[in-house]
């Protein structure tokens, strides 16, 4: 990492550190909830990829939009979401961001510009591009970042929307988090040629960056966001990163597709939080003790939020047919009636 720019960035650095730690703490708690059988369904951990979400989202305002993925908790936290409403959502509680209707794979936080996680791989590429079209047509300055994984580059939708984004010069940044795997398959086995070249073929300026280096990610994103605001765009970024857990929380025995050594190596050498922490200390921005204090505070925040969510009520049964249509209180005549 490069040297600290100047002291007045301290707040920004700290914010990035805090946000990365918050994501890690959120995921550790979510994983515990799963392991202790208190969370319904499965979920996909973002741990290891924190510098991507944070480096990017710290270059954005609340007005700026993101679209997220099945591995979306990191994006959600980074874009400003609150722990309590997130855990409530993961547990299907009424106070969740989506009143429990979305769950982990559909968590959205409209107030901070998160248009939602998406359980269809690549499913949000059109949505992000459409948001950028809104910005342009409505003469608003917001920029949209479309997060997706390396596996999602196999969806034809991406090429369709890149083409239109390029033709129409839309303020959208396609951010591909290349964590080396899609589910249980190595990226090399499912992606021919070069990802960067695929974007470039549409005349899109493309970049590759170390996704474990929050400052590098943030700096590049700031530049590109700035250029988007002045009418340039779209852009493509490939971010090299790594997920620490299995594909989802239930993917425990994974030796058949990747080695424990590989995992250990990334954690040891390229952990985005550890490395950034060290850098903050090296640069004398923070002391080791101060960082530990931050970590502990966030951990206890997460624990409190988990407890809050565990105690929170489920939505009432009569919500089941609410929100099917905007403007219609209840979509069904007899939701709990003769038909069940």
């Amino acid at each position, binding site marked *: 990492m490069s040297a600290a720019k100047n002291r007045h960035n301290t707040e920004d650095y700290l914010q990035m550190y805090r946000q990365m730690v918050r994501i890690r703490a959120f995921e550790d708690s979510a994983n515990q909830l799963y392991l202790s059988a208190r969370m319904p369904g499965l979920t996909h951990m973002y741990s290891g990829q924190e510098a991507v979400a944070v480096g990017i989202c710290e270059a954005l305002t609340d007005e700026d939009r993101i679209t997220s993925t099945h591995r979306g908790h990191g994006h959600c936290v980074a874009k400003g979401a609150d722990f309590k409403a997130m855990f409530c959502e993961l547990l299907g509680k009424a106070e969740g961001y989506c009143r429990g209707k979305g769950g982990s794979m559909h968590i959205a936080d409209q107030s901070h510009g998160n248009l939602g996680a998406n359980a269809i791989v690549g499913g949000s590429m*059109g*949505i992000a591009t459409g948001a950028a079209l809104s910005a342009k047509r409505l003469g608003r300055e917001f920029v949209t970042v479309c997060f997706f994984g390396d596996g999602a580059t196999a969806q034809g939708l991406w090429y369709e929307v890149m083409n239109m984004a390029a033709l129409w010069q839309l303020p959208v940044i396609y951010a591909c988090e290349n964590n080396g795997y899609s589910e249980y398959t190595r990226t090399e086995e499912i992606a021919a040629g070069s990802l960067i070249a695929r974007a470039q073929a549409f005349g899109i300026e493309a970049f590759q960056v170390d996704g474990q280096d929050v400052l590098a990610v943030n700096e590049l994103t700031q530049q590109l966001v700035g250029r988007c605001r002045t009418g340039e765009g779209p852009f493509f970024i490939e971010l090299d990163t790594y997920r620490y857990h299995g594909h989802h929380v239930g993917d425990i025995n994974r030796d058949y597709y990747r080695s424990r050594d590989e995992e250990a190596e990334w954690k040891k050498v390229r952990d985005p939080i550890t490395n950034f922490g060290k850098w903050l200390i090296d640069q004398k921005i923070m002391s080791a003790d101060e960082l530990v204090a931050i970590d502990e505070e966030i951990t206890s925040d997460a624990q409190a939020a988990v407890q809050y969510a565990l105690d929170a009520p489920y939505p009432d049964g009569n919500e089941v047919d609410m929100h099917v249509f905007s403007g219609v209180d209840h979509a069904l005549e007899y939701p709990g009636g003769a038909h069940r």
Partner: protein
Amino acid sequence: MTREITLSKAVNEAIAEEMRRDASVILLGEDVAEAGTPFKVLSGLVEEFGTDRIIDTPISEPGFMGIAVGAAMTGLRPVVDLMFGDFLYLVMDQLCNQAAKTHYMSGGKLTAPLVLRTNMGATRRSAAQHSQSLQALVAHIPGLKVAMPSSAYEAKGLLKTAIRDDNPVVIFEDKLMYQDKAPVPEEEYLIPFGKAHIKREGRDVTLVATSSMVQVAEEAAEALAGDGISAEVIDPRTIVPLDEQTILNSVRKTSRAIVIDEGHQSYGVTAEIAARIGEKAFYHLDAPVIRMGAMDVPVPFSPALEDLTVPNAAGVAENARRICRGELIHAA
């Protein structure tokens, strides 16, 4: 003041009026701007609203459908022009997994106010991939509203309502009716969703018909009148929401029903309407509800075959006569 205009012109007016009223309305699709679509339905719009609002896209149906969803979620009200209803298959994911579910999955926080305009209808010699009537597919998906205008009047009024609706709406125009004229008021009007229209009152048999089949039903009713059979013709106008009440009231009066739709019969629109009548007007029925959908075959190109595949007035009238005579059509 009412004048006669074509269905094509009615659609054009609806879009123009709504675009004038609301700057957030945009339209996108293939060859919609200078070309005004292959059916020339949109001619003149780009001259008034410019290419910023009437947007030509590449041949990327999933892509521009997805873009419409995102645009709808962030302040625009996109009208998507899907050149042929047969291309619905290409946009199903963005329409049904994304647009239809956004409001629900977000617990009511996000909306996707968009309109997907497309068409339906066979007997245009366009063969199996340009002749389908796929309304049943989208009607099955919660979160989508589905309109099926049966004339220029409905085409205009329903489309304007669709554009103002905060939900994704799919509207099917019959491509064979674009040049058909009907009386349409000069003054602005909207047609509410979920209110069926009783096209013709009658006592003996209810003909529930959608889109193009409304004409077929009216023709049959006319023929039946000559035989002393009084047929009531009901046009649901929207199949989601479906105005069950008007249909049931009619059947309770007539005791007999035929349901006619141009989609394939099996697992199609006629099944839903017939099943609801069978369930909720059971004790009023004097005869089985007859369904007349398109044949369960891909649409053949050859005129000699294609014309056999869709319901026609003679067939409707014949079925109506049989049930009115008390013939046990399927008693075997």
